[in-house]
């Protein structure tokens, strides 16, 4: 009648050994349905190392993805592996994972220190080790000075940092942060972003979800885009944009004499069209964004016109999604 002890074997046993060639996270054609709603649709992913941003609109399946990883819900089909282990009904991989849930609720009556000590001990630390560990992680998120205050008195940003700190005990190899920036003021946002970048730089695998592309791009370039439960794109955000280059694009230039400039720009072979929508603005249409950009600086300088602004309108998640879904979103 005792709990399954095999789940708590020593670190040295095979099960706990990091298998070198196994990605930290593997999703193999995972689907998850809630009643009639299909939250995840045949998602396949493999992630190890570095900071990865999980991008998607509300309800795109980001939280479901994390819940599946953390064994909170059972996949309707497909297989999930965390360090090569199926996390459903098996807490073994969590000793190497730090999870920061999206929920705002915390144990307000505890001090930050107690909170972290208590939950570190669930990793099997003694009280003493846990206290040392708590001091370390709280210092890392720079809350050392207030660590003996009750969490209830903390502001949103501080609470968020306590949550991150609690996920860092036991030196996890994988850190999952669900919407860590939501509701934080710029001060807290900057601090949290720095913490995340730091973790990535320390060689951890970090997963961060967000629905704001700019935010994620300030942290990492490695992104996964989810939309309506499917992986629309994954890779370097840079590279994703490059892929998008093959599609009709617009470049808007602000310049003292657009019509003059247009005469030079038209010489770039890839430009398919131009328009003068507003006063002092030149809109270039192209199917090969990269090519055009490559030649643009030279062309401008040669034309002798003064360009004060270059812009690609629609460069946020929304427009990327628009492209990826063929404008249907």
């Amino acid at each position, binding site marked *: 009648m005792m709990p399954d002890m095999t789940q708590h074997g020593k670190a040295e046993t095979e099960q706990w050994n990091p298998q070198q060639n196994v990605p930290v996270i593997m999703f193999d054609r995972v689907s998850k349905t809630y009643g009639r709603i299909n939250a995840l649709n045949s998602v396949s992913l493999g992630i190890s190392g570095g900071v990865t941003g999980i991008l998607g609109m509300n309800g795109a399946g980001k939280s479901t993805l994390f819940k599946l990883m953390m064994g909170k819900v059972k996949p309707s089909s497909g297989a999930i592996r965390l360090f090569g282990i199926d996390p459903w009904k098996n807490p073994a991989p969590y000793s190497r994972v730090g999870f920061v849930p999206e929920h705002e609720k915390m144990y307000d009556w505890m001090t930050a220190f107690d909170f972290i000590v208590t939950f570190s001990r669930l990793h099997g630390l003694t009280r003493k080790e846990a206290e040392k560990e708590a001091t370390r992680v709280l210092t890392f998120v720079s809350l050392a000075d207030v660590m003996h205050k009750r969490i209830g008195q903390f502001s949103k940003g501080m609470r968020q940092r306590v949550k991150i700190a609690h996920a860092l005990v036991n030196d996890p190899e994988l850190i999952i942060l669900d919407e860590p920036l939501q*509701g934080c003021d710029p001060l807290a946002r900057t601090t949290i972003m720095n913490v995340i970048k730091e973790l990535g730089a320390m060689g951890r695998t970090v997963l961060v979800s967000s629905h704001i592309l700019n935010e994620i791009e300030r942290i990492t370039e490695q992104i996964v885009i989810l939309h309506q439960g499917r992986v629309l794109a994954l890779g370097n955000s840079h590279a994703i944009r490059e892929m998008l280059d093959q599609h009709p694009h617009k470049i808007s230039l602000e310049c003292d004499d657009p019509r003059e400039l247009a005469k030079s720009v038209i010489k770039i072979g890839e430009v398919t069209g131009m328009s003068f929508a507003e006063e002092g603005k030149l809109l270039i249409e192209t199917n090969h964004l990269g090519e055009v950009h490559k030649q643009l*600086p030279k062309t401008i300088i040669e034309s002798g016109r003064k360009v004060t602004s270059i812009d690609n309108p629609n460069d946020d998640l929304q427009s990327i999604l628009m492209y990826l879904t063929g404008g249907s979103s």
Partner: protein
Amino acid sequence: MVKDLIIESTDLTKAYGPHIALDSLNIEIEKGATGLLGPNGAGKSTFLKTILGLIQLTSGEGKVLGYDVRTQGNLIRQNIGYMPEYDALNPNMDAIHQVKYSGELIGMNPAVALQRAHQALDYVGLGEQRYREVESFSTGMKQATKLACALIHDPKLIIADEPSNGLDAKAREFMLNTLEITVNEGQRSVLMASHLMDDVERVCENIVLLHKGKLAAQGKIEDLKAIDKEVEIHVWGSAGKMEETLKDRGMKVRREGRVMRIGHTGEDTYGNILQAAADVGTQVRRMHDHEATLEDLFLVIMERLGQDVKSTDDLLGGI
């Protein structure tokens, strides 16, 4: 010209025991859209509660739409629409009745409230979903429903606490648009508390910045932004080389990944940048004058007030 003030306060102070939540605030808010900013816990919520006439002032005076917050709370609340930060909807009710009920609570007749609820929901873009239970709504739809609740009696002033919190790009866009239309076409005033500086910048002309219960700054956003001009470029490929080249040309460069900010040195700045790009062969995907965003402004003001912004170095020291 006499200022058209909707909210004014003189030495408004609120203390909870020894803790001073609002410290002699002298605030003047004009008609139009105003952003209420401040770090978490700066006293924004307390301030909003004060102008709703919900809590007793310790000292000082306040007037909202000409009504005294001390004595005319009911009149104030009848004339403003409040959109709370958290969920304030019964998840098991459908949107239309929720909005209708909120109208009835102001004192509208049921029939009028129902008709007006339809209008309000149409306005916030919940035309087809109005008979659905709020439980099945996304965050954006919930926010829109809350806005509809606040708008049902066509208030002169709408107080929106974090209207775009947790919304994705599309929903946020819509929410901000709606607020903008409300201000510009509806000629209503909006007081909006938010963390997202972009949102405030888009909707509002004025800001009030609170910090630790004190007024840190207030006024037109334009006036407050007086930070050195920079040009921001997004480059594609060879960013490091580009940086070096620019520095060689004697320009001040700050780089964050593919984004660089270059100190404005006069009319030839753009030319120099493009020349450098042409030399290096990098793509300049974007180039524009970088106006100090509200976020920068916020950080600058906070820094002056003594709040440290943690840098990477500080964090490294902890390990």
